[in-house]
């Protein structure tokens, strides 16, 4: 059936990290230079759409003074000796690696200048660099390629001077994604695109309900079908192994597996009931306690108490879960999309009882991750299967497997309480979070903590067989909505403008802080002011505006949502965002991170939910797990604060504020308060036709 050589046409392109040209001169883990002036920059972190594969090399190239047109970016395989924190999560890569990337480029630049100085017999300090050349004061130039061999032989300097950010010429510009051409022409980049001659395909039937285990397996009919090589049962998995994807998909339909209960069988209705009980429970894990909350609430002129609930969500990356594994006598080869290659390596080594050094991990591009690919379950599973069948195998998940197979964003319910004095001052604040496998469902040091004298934040977690995990902007992806919607109501009760109310609280935190303050007050104020200014806050007559501001993952984002009433129905017209992530590395990538984060936050706030019936997810594909589409997106306007501070990440921070801004705008337009997600399925939205217009 395979009429051409896979290893030439497909595998070679994916295993890019091993194809470095022999003639290249290596300077450090991040870069090498060829005699013909091509600068190869290795990008170690997994690329899943956060644009790290473009922005990381930009930082190296900036300090190197490379000609970007001659830069070739290569995805590095896992290499724990060369790189650290080789993972994608928590919007942490840029702040972690900023300085080391700059040093990698600056060190090579320093050595190239030294080599030129020797050649010309002049002091290095008289030389300059630009666009891939070292330049003599008399105008003579030597290219980096011509100097590379001599330069790399020099002693590596321990200290190098980094550029003054004022002199950046690449950082801060809009640089197109380095993989654009490959992506728009359909080149094999992703894990699912990996094929190798002799490789087998597999799909795994996992328990459809959480809290069950296999009772019996009858694979007779499945094994008899064409193209099926084997059906293997291990742990709670039944793997169908075959020669092609469609053949194993068909065999799955005739596979008979019986399951029996092995733990709690839970439904969403159980969780709804449980949340209410837990919210009233006297004992909880105290996360933060300032002042005397009881007295504050006793003395309050007004008390506002509200509850908010969010459902489980599926990560649903567009590329279904998959991984290739080949367990051989002398080691294990893992190839595929993972946010955490080292976790995958360690977990595989542990499972197979071998040394981690025996496991290699090649990174493909990831067709999205959103936190799902932080887990190693699907990698380990592929390795275990490869060992059992003694063959190279690619395990592919169907969309249904993905949505039923867990690591969901946990379902959570919050109760907020605020105490106001007679003049509308916030004198007391309480928050309890209760969740299903959510851990600490609060972020106790987030605003308005520090601005309220009497405050209590606690949480209770329910342990469930339903597996959960980090979902893009963990916890804050919903907490921010609840908190910002609540603050809107509190501002209203205090008879204050929502923006003014937040600014006053921040001023209070500055003048008379209570307890630790873990956010930068001035930076938060600056995004609030920028969003208010750019949106013409409070000045637009025919538009209802809703405000939200959130600090998460070390970046600050404020958003204003604008709703217009058209024929009696609210139409979401625009969301204006002001972000402070410090120095913007790639303006094109950064703008899209914010726009995409807003679309993601909006889509899940409007439509997203996974409900459970007897332990099984009820939404199993995009026909009833609704993702936001082209015609459901409002305009988005993105602004950045320009403050020259060292950069922080943007993969997550723009998502959390969106739900709150939209809910607050809908309230202003319609008088209807939204407390639960997804918005479109709530009682309050019955008969309301929410429109969007891009």
């Amino acid at each position, binding site marked *: 059936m395979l009429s051409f050589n896979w290893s030439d046409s497909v595998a070679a392109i994916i295993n890019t990290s091993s194809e470095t040209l022999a003639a290249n001169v290596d300077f450090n883990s991040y870069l090498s230079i060829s005699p013909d002036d091509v600068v190869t920059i290795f990008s170690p972190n997994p690329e899943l759409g956060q644009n790290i594969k473009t922005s990381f090399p930009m930082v190296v190239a900036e300090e190197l003074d490379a000609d970007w047109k001659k830069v070739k970016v290569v995805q590095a395989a896992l290499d724990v000796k060369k790189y650290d924190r080789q993972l994608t999560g928590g919007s942490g890569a840029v702040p972690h690696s900023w300085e080391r990337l700059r040093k990698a480029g600056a060190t090579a630049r320093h050595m190239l200048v030294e080599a030129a100085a020797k050649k010309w017999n002049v002091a290095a300090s008289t030389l300059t660099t630009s666009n891939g050349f070292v330049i003599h004061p008399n105008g003579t130039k030597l290219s980096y390629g011509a100097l590379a061999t001599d330069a790399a032989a020099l002693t590596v300097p321990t200290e190098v001077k980094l550029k003054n950010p004022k002199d950046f010429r690449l950082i801060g510009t809009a640089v197109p*994604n380095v*993989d654009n051409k490959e*992506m728009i022409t359909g080149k094999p980049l992703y894990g699912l695109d990996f094929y190798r001659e002799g490789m087998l395909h597999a799909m795994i039937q996992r328990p459809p309900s959480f809290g069950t285990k296999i009772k019996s397996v009858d694979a007779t009919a499945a094994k008899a079908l064409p193209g099926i090589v084997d059906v293997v049962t291990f742990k709670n998995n039944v793997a169908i192994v075959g020669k092609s994807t469609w053949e194993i998909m068909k065999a799955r339909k005739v596979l008979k597996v019986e399951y029996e209960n092995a733990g709690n069988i839970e439904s969403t209705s159980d969780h709804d009931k449980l949340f209410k009980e837990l919210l009233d429970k006297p004992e909880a894990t105290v996360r933060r306690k300032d002042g005397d909350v009881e007295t504050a609430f006793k003395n309050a002129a007004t008390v506002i108490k509200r509850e908010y609930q969010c459902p489980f969500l599926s990560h649903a990356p567009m590329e279904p879960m998959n991984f290739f594994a080949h367990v051989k006598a002398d080691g294990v080869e893992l190839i595929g999309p993972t946010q955490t290659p080292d976790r995958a390596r360690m977990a595989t080594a542990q499972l197979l009882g071998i040394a981690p050094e025996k496991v290699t991990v090649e990174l493909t591009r990831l067709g999205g991750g959103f936190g799902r690919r932080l887990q190693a379950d699907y990698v380990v599973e592929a390795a275990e299967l490869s060992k059992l069948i003694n063959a190279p195998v690619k395990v592919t998940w169907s969309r249904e497997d993905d949505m039923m197979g867990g690591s969901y964003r946990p379902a959570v319910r919050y109760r907020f309480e605020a105490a106001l004095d007679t003049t509308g001052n916030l004198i007391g604040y309480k928050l309890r979070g209760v969740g299903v496998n959510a851990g600490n469902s609060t972020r106790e040091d987030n605003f308005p903590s520090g601005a309220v004298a009497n405050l209590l934040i606690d949480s209770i977690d329910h342990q469930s067989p339903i597996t959960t995990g980090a979902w893009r902007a963990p916890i804050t992806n919903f907490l921010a909505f609840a908190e910002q919607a609540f603050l809107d109501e509190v501002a209203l009760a205090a008879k204050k403008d929502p923006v003014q109310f937040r600014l006053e609280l921040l001023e209070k935190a500055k003048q008379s802080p209570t307890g630790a303050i873990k956010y930068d007050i001035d930076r938060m104020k600056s995004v609030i002011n920028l969003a208010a200014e750019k949106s013409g806050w409070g000045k637009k007559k025919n538009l209802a505006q809703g405000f939200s501001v959130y600090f998460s993952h070390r970046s600050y984002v404020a958003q204003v949502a604008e709703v217009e009433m058209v024929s009696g129905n609210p139409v979401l017209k625009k969301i204006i965002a002001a972000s402070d992530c410090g120095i913007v590395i790639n303006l094109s990538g950064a703008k899209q991170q914010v726009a995409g984060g807003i679309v993601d936050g909006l889509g899940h706030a409007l439509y997203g939910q996974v409900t459970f019936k007897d332990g099984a997810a009820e939404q199993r594909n995009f026909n009833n797990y609704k993702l936001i589409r082209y*015609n459901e997106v409002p305009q988005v306007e993105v602004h950045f604060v320009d403050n020259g501070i060292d950069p922080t990440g943007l993969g997550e921070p723009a998502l959390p504020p969106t739900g709150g801004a939209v809910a607050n705008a809908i309230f202003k337009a319609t008088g209807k308060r939204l407390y639960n997600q997804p918005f479109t399925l709530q009682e309050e939205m019955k008969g309301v036709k929410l429109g969007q217009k891009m």
Partner: protein
Amino acid sequence: MAAYSINVNGETKKVDVASDTPLLWVLRDSLGLVGTKFGCGIAQCGACTVHLNGTAVRSCALPISAIGTSKVTTIEGLSKEGDHPVQQAWQEVDVPQCGYCQAGQIMSAAALLAKNAKPTEEQIATAMSGNICRCGTYHRIKEAVVLASSKMK
């Protein structure tokens, strides 16, 4: 299993597969044309969009037995050099994030513009709403379709 001869990107391809095999898996598993993506398997997300005689179709729900003599065009065959006006626009606007859905998005946009070179905003929305982008690049998709429209001869 049955032998099929289909026209893909202007070439005749012979495959031996079950008659109900979706075109998607013929392209990917049999022909090595992996630019066409698997996303949902139920014609909901559009990641598997290809052209059948110039019309955008979901290859995950189209069995090989239904192809007959129709001409199949995949992302690999949309242009020789990757310079179809839609592909050019996608690059100029810097559309992709993770990029997984983009081949399908481009095929939907190219089919729209081939029939209607100057679509209205509503016509673009109708044509593009069948393709999900989980990263949320919809604003850039819109910008790129408008730009590609201006490039169409």
